[in-house]
């Protein structure tokens, strides 16, 4: 299947997931185990995506300008900067690091 196929399938699954929430009885909300899995999945996936985007290059691990972006974004978040500012700080840090000779 080509990229379009996976995109449309991802959209379909997203719509179905949201809709399923409206069909199941609210009692399921009282199930702490299900809530915990949904929550930890969200955290785990975002952490994994942060890690691969910062350090992976194909199948190898590298330290390059993106580390500067990771650190700068962490500082911006710690200073409670809004999301868009955090993203811009990340771009700026990576750009600057490259300008200074980082890979």
């Amino acid at each position: 299947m080509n990229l379009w196929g996976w995109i449309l399938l991802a959209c379909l699954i997203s719509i179905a997931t949201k809709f399923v929430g409206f069909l199941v009885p609210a009692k399921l909300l009282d199930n702490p185990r299900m809530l915990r899995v949904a929550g930890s999945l969200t955290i785990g996936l975002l952490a994994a995506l942060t890690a691969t985007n910062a350090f992976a290059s194909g199948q190898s691990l590298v330290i390059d300008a993106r580390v500067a972006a990771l650190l700068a974004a962490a500082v911006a978040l710690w200073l409670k900067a809004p999301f868009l500012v955090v993203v811009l700080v990340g771009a700026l840090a990576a750009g600057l690091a490259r300008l200074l000779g980082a890979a």
Partner: protein
Amino acid sequence: MLLLRSPAVRVGLSVAVATGLYGLSFGALSVAAGLDVAQTMALSLLLFSGGSQFAFIGVIAGGGSGISAMSAAALLGIRNGVYGMQVNVLLRPSRWWKLIVAHLTIDESVATATGQSDPDEQRRGFWAAGLGVFALWNLFTLGGALAGNAIGDPARWGLDGAAVAAFLGLLWPRVQAKEPAGIAVACAVVTLITVPFVPSGIPILIAALVAAVLGLSGVGPSGEGLEPDVEPYSPGAGGGAP
């Protein structure tokens, strides 16, 4: 005019502006990852869930396959199902409205609605944030995608750094306590250890499996990690359940 006097509507609209603006970064990063403008817009219009959209393009940008990208997006979207149950109880939409209400069920609309105590205000907050974010998110995605197409090589502009920052920004409000931070560190470490050994995109799914096992085995309080991307009632503050 009368509507603008509703506190929930005002909060919803300000959330919509803030969230819509970061649609710019999604649009630009999506075309940098190799999607075209139409594919980018399909994600914003139909998938319509910021975290899952960033996950999809994040996997593709790293050289992962379509199926890994789809799986990451689907797993990250599971929390929307949980939100759906909450919204169903709050708004009690009739059968046909459910489809539309479900599509607008995202971090921002749920956070705005659940932050109100009066049922009418909850309803207004949900619609203001849901419709507002939908309109602006798509508008700014288009702007970002067109701009991203125009500037060319993503690395030269630090766009790969922007992606790293975006994911950390989505993660940050959810890891303010010790247990969720532990889950995040464990999953990041597992990801990095597995990167050299399996195809791109798979490490993220392995990390998801580890996260699910940690969640099942009862690490961390229930509901942790389900904090929305935004905290409409105290801007900039991290964490805080809706």
